[in-house]
């Protein structure tokens, strides 16, 4: 193939995008990695541990970030979005818009200048469960390790005033637009959790102590809003009894018809967060099928724990018992053929994955999607090569696998 350009654009800096960018660059190609938030890492950076090894995602990211740092062929653009794609395989022109960090150029101390600034905003990294300072490095392992002014703070006149008087902050910076010339494009913008507020009967919008699985990751994480202490968002009460509701909005024609393939393992993993931390804790898992396809032995270990109760049934209601302030999960139990009412401290909804491309389409003609918004493409001819969860709902390992393959497709197709 005679390509005008051989460089590769990777859009989305989560695990799939980071992998695709590195693998492509280590093959000798120039790579631009575009990420819309101020740091790479995507969803996994906010997770406490991976299943089934119960190892922290930071560990693999650390290796990957070192590979990026040491590879001059990778240009990382954070706070950046792709506005427009023109041309064809081998000769794309891509318009990228980059938001400012609002930090003075040439400032190297990422901490001290902002220590006096106490104002906080809701932390998106914590799914709104906690607060973050308006200026700072997004988290312990942010890449790049640079401070940024939180965008949501700019709308608040009072905070804005404080920011204007903070040395090192420069609110006059403007977004920049650039045009990249690349030969091929990998699309790895990942997924968003299904909106739990749409499953009204499970109480997510009504009760602070009904949380989603991604939120529970933050509650359990040492750098999360509670410092890893498992307490209820509503009243800080220690969590001792926990219910997982599987397929919350999944395998359900009214919500997501497909199976997101990771939620069962995610919940099994999360049972260990509480079982390993809280003595005498009790866990209830309401499920249709336990799909631990790749890691059966992990499931087996959890099954052997007498404090973890598996109930086959689909809960129809989560309600509050005002006297005890317990949440009560009301469900059919297909084994006893009875309705059970299980009082717990916290309910975790195992919500599924929605491809980011359901809402945020690729700005390029001729890209096709299935009815759920997943990208559909031919592996040998695709102009835009999908990688990771925009293609299928998969776990981290499969996402890395797919992104590695996407890299060679990009090099060949481009």
């Amino acid at each position, binding site marked *: 193939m005679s390509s005008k350009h051989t460089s590769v654009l990777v859009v989305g800096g989560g695990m799939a995008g980071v992998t695709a960018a590195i693998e492509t660059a280590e093959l000798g190609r120039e790579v631009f990695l575009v990420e819309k938030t101020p740091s790479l890492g995507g969803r996994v950076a906010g997770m406490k541990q991976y299943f089934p090894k119960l190892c922290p995602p930071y560990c693999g990211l650390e290796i*990957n970030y070192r590979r990026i740092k040491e590879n001059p062929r990778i240009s990382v653009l954070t706070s950046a979005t792709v506005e427009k794609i023109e041309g064809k395989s081998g000769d794309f022109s891509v318009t990228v818009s980059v938001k400012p960090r609002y930090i003075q150029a040439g400032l190297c101390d990422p901490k001290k200048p902002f220590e006096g600034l106490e104002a906080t905003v809701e932390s998106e990294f914590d799914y709104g469960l906690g607060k973050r300072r308006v200026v700072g490095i997004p988290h312990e392992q942010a890449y790049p390790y640079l401070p940024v002014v939180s965008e949501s703070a700019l709308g608040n006149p009072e905070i804005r005033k404080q920011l204007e008087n903070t040395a090192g902050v420069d609110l006059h910076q403007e977004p920049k637009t650039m045009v990249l010339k690349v030969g091929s494009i990998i699309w790895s913008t990942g997924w968003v959790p299904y909106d739990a507020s749409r499953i009204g009967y499970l109480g997510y919008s009504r009760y602070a102590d009904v949380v989603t699985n991604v939120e529970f990751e933050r509650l359990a994480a040492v750098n999360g809003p509670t410092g890893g202490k498992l307490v209820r968002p509503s009243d800080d009460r220690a969590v001792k009894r926990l219910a997982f509701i599987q397929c919350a909005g999944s395998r359900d024609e009214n919500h997501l018809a497909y199976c997101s393939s990771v939620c069962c393992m995610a919940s099994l993993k999360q049972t260990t967060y509480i079982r390993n931390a809280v003595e005498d804790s009790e866990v209830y898992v309401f499920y249709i099928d336990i799909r631990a396809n790749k890691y059966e032995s992990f499931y087996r270990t959890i099954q052997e724990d007498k404090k973890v109760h598996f109930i086959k049934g689909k809960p129809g209601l989560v309600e509050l018992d005002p006297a005890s302030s317990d949440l009560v999960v009301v469900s059919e139990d297909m084994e006893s053929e009875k309705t059970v009412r299980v009082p717990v401290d916290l309910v975790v909804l195992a919500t599924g994955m929605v491809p980011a491309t359901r809402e945020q389409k690729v700005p390029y003609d001729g890209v096709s999607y299935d009815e759920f918004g997943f990208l559909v493409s031919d592996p040998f001819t695709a102009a835009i090569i999908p990688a990771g969860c925009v293609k299928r709902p998969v776990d981290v390992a499969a996402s890395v696998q797919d992104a590695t393959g996407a890299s060679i497709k990009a090099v060949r197709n481009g």
Partner: protein
Amino acid sequence: MAEKIGCFVCSGCGIADAVDVDTLVAIAQGEKKAATAMCHEALCQKEGLELMRKEIESHGLDGVVVAACSGRDKSNEFDFENVYVDRANLREGVAWTHEPGHEDTQMLAEDLVRMAMGRSKFASRPKGEPVQPNNRVLVIGGGMAGLSAALYASGFDREVVLVEKEDVLGGFANHLHKIYPKDMDLRAYAETDLDGLISRVAGEKKITVYTGAEVGRISGAPADFDVTINQGSDKINLKVDTVVVAAGWKPYDAAKLGHLGYGTTPDVVTNVEFERMAKEGKLQRPSDGKALESVLFVQCAGSRDDNHLPYCSNVCCGASLKQITYLKEANPQTACYVIYKDIRTPGHYEEVYKKVQKTGALFIKGEVESVQKGAEGGMAVQATDVLLGEPVAVEVDLVVLATGMVPTTLDTDVLNLTYRQGPELPEREYGFPNSHFICFPYETQRTGIYAAGAVRMPMDLASGMDDGAGAALKAVQSIELISQGKATHPRVGDLSFPNFALQRCTQCKRCTEECPFGALDEDIKGTPKPNPTRCRRCGVCMGACPERIVSFDNYSINSISEAIKSIFVPDEFEEKPRVIALACENDAIAAIDMAAHNSLRINPFVRVIPVRCLGSFNIIWVADALSRGVDGIMLMGCKYGDDYQCHFIKGSELANTRMSNVQDTLDRLMLESERLRQVEVAITDYDKIPQIFDDFLEKLEELGPNPYKD
């Protein structure tokens, strides 16, 4: 060995507020004899970098110590051609974690500068040794994954040699009546078009196919493998650089499933046999040719079962659902039963499940008790419905056992490597190859050899095709890296490799046994024969060697020893104990930096020394430290055991063994073995770092000062 070392101290990021930087400069220049030493307020900025470049040029420096932020930050900025760069971590290691202006804080900073200067004296920038590749990849297995790997790896300047043991390409997919997702209406995946794939491979000039052939032998090392292919009585010898193993799977041996009726009657078949029946258009009862009116599928036949395959093969639920559609398409009235534990149809496969549920097929969560010849000529199946707690009895024309997948490599050698450590990829479990299967699924324990498809883990054909592409990427990429003399994962790009001073070798074989990547072979006497292109540069051999003959240009026993010896150890009356912490640079060092990010206070008596991997820990460092009066030595590494987190597989485990041996010796010498401690530190354990150090210091206080102290 760096001969002219410059030291640059940064006063920015709060460093000058915490310590007296002029004294640091004076120590570097005076005591440590730096060729030049100076301070600057922002070394990482343009002006600072220009200053350093100028100094490097005017003094002809071949080593530079940057006393500034953690070595994890700004490694791009502090990189100068042909210059060895060491870092003294004054920002995270001192300014962000210690009381500003305190005497102990100052002493710590001074030691960090001394240690980096000391290390640099015994280090130089590695140059690497490029090798001339053959630009040829060997792919073993011509199924979907192997075909995909061959296709993607070929092209540009690279050739592919594809070896298939059957007489035709296509692998297991050849035996299928319909293929997921292509034939199953699972929207627009064009990927599993087997014929299309085979004709693409046939049309690719850079691919040479050997069918009816097997790999007889592979010797050598990446970029220089000698391969013998046996094709009938012919032997073909050729050279390749890297290998993709896509040797596929075979069905679990149904002969072991007598309890499910297999083998006693032709009317109990496996899912593989049923697929063939469908392909041949014979949807009839095998015993008498009667048209099938009722069929029962037993899921997890020999799967998720400790007596057979403990794991789930991932595809059998989807396969049975597909097979029910064959029956329902032929005759919608066919009664179909499925006895299952869980129906596992991830992702889009759920749609097929829904579709089949609508056909009236009956799904029973339960266990099969017995399968016997029935009264009406069919098969009588007794089962328990675990939901209703009731027995189920049904007589059907045919029973289909959904058997699982076994990797070909479980009992068949496919690589036949002539490595000292064995002919095949080391396995993780159940015959599947070991890897860091979450973050780095393709990384096997044999450099340049990558597994793809169902031989790597049970997977469907669409995933197998993608997996072939991924493995092809790694195979091609490793040629690129290795030919430049660079390491592959995880120390990608590292140009150093271990030098062996073999004249001092005592043939103890520890290095050849412990190398996690099989990089070292042995001659007849047991002397190691290094294969640089197999090496991942972890330093396990360096840690293992009792004669200390292994070293890297930029990392050696001597460089770390010198760092240890550079520490100023106050006498016992000053009551300032000293602890050395040898810390894994990927995780423990990052955890300490993250403690600094959170401004946690860390004990000022600890001197942290990054190591490539705890596996490179050599016990001589204990002697170096204790003889200098250091009070305690801490090893900080990754979790080991079954769920090991070490990226060099067992570095932290090996360190632990070595440490236990030293502890025994210390006990014999009536020295307190508690002066040595290993801790498992995950990268996110940053909140525990202060406590880990304080606990150890407390223990050392109990023991009293090291008797070897001046």
